[in-house]
């Protein structure tokens, strides 16, 4: 039997104890008409599996940029983003695609469902893109989890806003991601429907042990989040554990 070396064992231990998502001194600059604008400045943040983090702050304070950096859709100008210990900047396009297919889920304010596909097809789409065999069964499972399995064959425009967002959540979770990134998921919903969606996200963190990072204006979120990160002008102004 082949035993791992002491160094390898240490690395495995580090990984197990390391946070799922780690932003280390991350800065993101954009160049606009020759002027460089910093969207995120020297941000450091660690999120563990099963943790629910709320990013709050005014529009333009850097919340969405931070989510994109966390989901490996964008890359820091300096510093590094580590997802399960791997720096996103070190991956090539194929590896990044694989990372998104397997470990990250996204939820958007405006749901972003494909209007030409049915509810079930929308949910199974990430699995189909990844070439997973039993996509339909897994998608039905997720749809049942958000209590919309009876709506499987409907088209998105036949659903209410809250239902659409629940479908979007099912889609984001269908491949059981380790990290769920939600950008203002309740922004287009009324309070009651928004609360249902928040409850679902909370359950994702607690039941499925996924790290949930959510950018929001919603005050209610601060009450259910494990960590509230208040941002101002691209920097973390305050971190509070309620």
């Amino acid at each position: 039997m082949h035993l791992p070396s002491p160094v390898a064992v240490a690395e495995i231990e580090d990984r197990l104890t390391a946070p799922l998502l780690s932003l280390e001194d991350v800065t993101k600059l954009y160049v606009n008409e020759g002027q460089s604008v910093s969207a995120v400045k020297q941000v450091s943040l660690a999120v563990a599996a099963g943790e629910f983090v709320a990013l709050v702050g005014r529009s333009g304070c850097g919340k969405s940029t931070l989510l994109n950096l966390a989901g490996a859709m964008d890359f820091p100008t300096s510093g590094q983003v580590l997802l399960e210990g791997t720096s996103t900047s070190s991956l090539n396009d194929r590896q990044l695609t694989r990372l998104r297919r397997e470990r990250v889920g996204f939820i958007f304010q405006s749901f972003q469902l494909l209007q030409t596909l049915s509810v079930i097809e929308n949910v199974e789409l990430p699995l189909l893109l990844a070439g997973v065999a039993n996509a339909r069964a897994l998608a039905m499972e997720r749809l049942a989890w958000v209590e919309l399995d009876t709506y499987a064959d409907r088209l998105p425009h036949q659903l209410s806003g809250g239902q659409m967002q629940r479908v979007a959540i099912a889609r984001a979770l269908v491949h059981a991601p380790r990290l769920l990134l939600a950008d203002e998921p309740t922004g287009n919903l009324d309070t009651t429907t928004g609360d249902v969606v928040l409850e679902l996200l909370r359950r994702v963190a607690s039941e499925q042990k996924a790290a949930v990072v959510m950018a929001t204006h919603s005050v209610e979120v601060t009450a259910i989040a494990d960590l509230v990160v208040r941002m101002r002008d691209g920097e973390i102004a305050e971190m509070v554990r309620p």
Partner: protein
Amino acid sequence: MLRPMWREKTRLLLTVFAVALGVSVVLAIHLAGNAAAGSFQSSMETLAGDSDFEVTAAGGVPDNVVGVLAQLPYALRVSPRMEDHAMVVSTGHTVPLIGVDLVGESNDIQGKAAGPLAPDALEHLTDADSIWMPQASGHKLGDHLRLLINDHEREYTVRGLLPSSGMSVANRYILMDIAAAQIATAKRNRVDRILLKLPEHSGVGIDEWRTRLRAALPAGVEVNPQGSRTDANRRMLSAFRWNLQILSYVALVVGAFLIYNTISVSVVRRRHEIGIVRALGADRRLVLAAFLGEAICFGIAGSLLALPLGRLMAAGAVHLLAATVDALYVSSRPGSLALTWGSVALSFVVGIGVVIASALSPAREAASVSPVEAMARGQREYSAQVHRSRDLWIALVLAFAGVLASQPPAIAGKPLFGYLSALLLIAASAMAVPSLVYAVSRAAAPLLHKLLGVEALLASRSLTASLRRTAVLVGALSTAIAMMTSVGIMVGSFRQTVVTWMDSQLPADLYLSPAGDPAADRHPTISLELTDKIQKLPGVSGVDRFRAYEIVYQGMPAMLASADTKLSRYYRASGFLSHRSPEQVLGTLQAGNNAIVSEPFANKHHVKAGDTLSLALGAKVEPFKIADVFYDYGSERGTILLDRSVMLRYLPDPAASNLAVYLSPGADMEMVRQEIEKAASGYAVLVFSNRDLRSQAIRIFDQTFAITYALEAVAILVAIMGVAGSLMSIVIDRRREFGLLRFIGASMPQVRKLILVEAGIIGILSNVAGIILGVALSLVLIFVINKQSFGWTIQFHWPVAILLGGLTVVYVATVLAGLYPARIAQRLNPIEVVHEE
């Protein structure tokens, strides 16, 4: 209006270029047609002057008629002319050979001469080897030139140069004395035409003059206003030019679909802007004007670009056209291409007209939207509604109307109802395309998903969702494919029919004709002594002497021909419309004044078996009964065929235009051929084997239709450009979707595959619709338009290899057209496009 257009430069350029290509094809065919037609108009009218009448007769006017006219008690200017062709041996060019009475007109010639005459020019005026040439020919006084006239090659000396005309085509001729020309062309005692100038201020009307002149002349001699032959040629060519011009509009029709698509996309994209300007006080007319203005910009830019492009295409087309006109109609040499103000106006009228017509519907739709509705969010995607079942019903009604329109006869020789039928079928197809796209995309989506993966599912769903846009694209491409298919089937069927016809109509082993360029209206002859020599050669069992004359029958050029019908190996049973045996039909020809006519002749002059023709032959006018109508694909001019013995009774010139040589059983063809060539040394004749003649005929056939293939290629190119442009707009409109796909795990190759699969599905749908429409159009082309325009019976035939090849090329090109849009889709920044709302 301009700023949004400018933002998408590639698409703007593609649209402008599509309009430009469509317009330039129309312009090119217009210019090339004028140049090719202009040449025959002037070739024989060279030096004709300002005469009032021309006197002609089948087989030539007896030269005593000149004396009769000169002795009339009127102050007429009588100018007899010989008109034939000669080939300049050194260059291989065939030019008109004109013989005039140089003695009678010597003062005029001296006055007209472009420079000093040769010192002995007048001395040698009537010499058999003296010729005069236009200064622009590049020849000098005293130059020696070898000319091939009929089957004889002789040397001639340039005695004088005549001033050049502004028209390059009028500068290609050879002038000689009429007597020398009679010898050279072996037309003794006959002249080809006599021009008459009436006395000025005679106080007698032109009709009265014609009556007087006719009364003084033998019955078979015709008196017509000068230029009648040019008019007759023009009438004969009109069907050919008309059909070609119609075909040139196909690319423009395809372009119209694309303009419609461009403006529709523009309307949808700027719906929000429309709402704002309407809310700020703009009325519906302003919105309508803005979108029509956008379309007109495309029209103006496209028309401007079409001017040099059309001129360039015309330069290529004119040679193809001239070759066709030469082979099928009348001797021609392309004239100069003149881009006149008229052509420029045509370009702009066509270009701007087509964009306004195609942009009107989407522009009106834009103007009809209320401000509140327009400013509502969620209208970014192209989601205009299509009334599929209503459109399908309309399609059925249009198709039925198309079938009905194919029934009436031609109007003034033009198959106007045939064109209407084709247009109605194209419109029916355009209306049926949304249903086809919807049905096929929906039904095929699961299969495509299974075969090509999730990208195919997304592609087919997206095409169904943007049904109107997809339908317009498929409509454009399928129209171009349908034209390719229909013309391919028509030409392929025609070709096969000609091949089958040649099998039955070319039974001889060897054929002889005078050397020189062949043309439908030139009938040089082979010397009688050579014919007699060949007939006596060992191994030769018989020689059929075919003789042809150019005549004008009821104002249209035609060929009057004779053959040794006793040989009876010509015209097998399948060769006659009645399907009677050749013995039955040809036997009647030998019996008396009976004739058989070709199918195009019967069609042009609305005659049938049993009718009587009135033929002017020599000095007489004789009635001939039509014994039957024979299939003939050799010339569109129309042929009247008599037995040789009957013809010789009226036109006693025994020389033959062509010989068909039959070998004795067991004779070695190569040896007989060598014997014939030996016997023909000193004569300029060409000897063809049966196979040579067939391949030459097929070469001429293919050359004739080369231009139609070129026109189709342009239409296909326009459609492919439209596919590329539309796919680009699809990518731009659906950028959020592509960005989202990247967020949820799609790789860049998957996004590219999605676009390429969409292009592929568009290609398949277009091919399906195009083939269905193409077969329907081919039936209209073969059995209505061709039949009414040219009178040919064509047997339907599937040119499978050509069609498969053509469709594959179009399909591959369609998929390749998706490459650039796919690249754009790959390069989209997912973060920007997903968050831009």
